[in-house]
């Protein structure tokens, strides 16, 4: 677990202290995607090699749908609770808007 926090904190510090140029940011994005791809490949292979997980995939799909639906429902209900406080702020003017749209999760 320490490994996870250390890697994240190290990256956060590097990014905060020396924000990457657009070219380097693109490289970082590629490296992150490559890491993500290796993780998914590895997880897929581990799943395939595990007979008990494979036998359980159908039931797991239903469980996953229920968990996803209840998570979203919980988020929607709590945002609904606080939306009055936030929506009043939305009428105030803010600066220009730019996104990091299109990046993968």
């Amino acid at each position, binding site marked *: 677990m320490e490994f996870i926090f250390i890697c994240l904190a190290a990256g956060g510090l590097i990014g*905060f202290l020396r924000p990457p140029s657009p070219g380097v940011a693109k490289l970082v994005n590629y490296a992150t995607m490559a890491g993500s791809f290796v993780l998914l490949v590895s997880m897929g292979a*581990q799943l395939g*090699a595990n007979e008990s997980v494979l036998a359980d995939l159908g039931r797991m799909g239903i469980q996953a749908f229920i968990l996803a*639906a209840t998570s979203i429902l919980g988020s929607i209900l709590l*945002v609904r609770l606080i939306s009055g406080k936030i929506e009043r702020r*939305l009428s105030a003017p*803010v*600066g220009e808007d730019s996104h990091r749209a299109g*990046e993968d999760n």
Partner: protein
Amino acid sequence: MTGLVVGAVVLCILLGKWVLPDFLVGQLDLFTNLALGLMLVGVGIDLGSQRSTWCRLRALGWRVLLVPLAVALGSLVGAVGGGLILGLPLNESSAIGAGFGWYSLSGVLIAQIYSVQTGALAFLTNVIRELLAFMLIPVLAVKVSKLMAVAPGGATAMNTTLPVISRVTDADTTVIALVNGTSLSLLVPLLVPVLIGF
């Protein structure tokens, strides 16, 4: 993109079942740890360098942080509720809910720290969350309120679902979505290991 990812995982499941020799499957942990480290450093650099997002947050007011707080808390409570229905232990359901839609990281973290089976469930849950988010965001924005469109996406509100949110809401809500996604993305690698460890 989600379809490609799911397709790649299915292909690798088939490889793991029929093609990869056992000794190679045993070495996957090493590759996974290296890739995880690389990915987390990259994510950290990305989050740490987003000064403009935090500046926009100041312009909108710190109260906007209530949104990621509500999304996170609602997601955790919802997942624990769903877990109770399914008879899952509290640590598993809460850690799965703490993925906030970030399937690649949450699934692998849980598979590494806890079990491959629960990691697979986290992966599927968060893929389904993202797919449901794509369907719900336009409906919520039109039928309920623009702010509500930020809730379903969770951490994906800073990347994959952001274009949809941006299209169906306005500039202010898009900024809130970006702040929401960034905050939740920061929370995933912190909360998942802690919650699964309980």
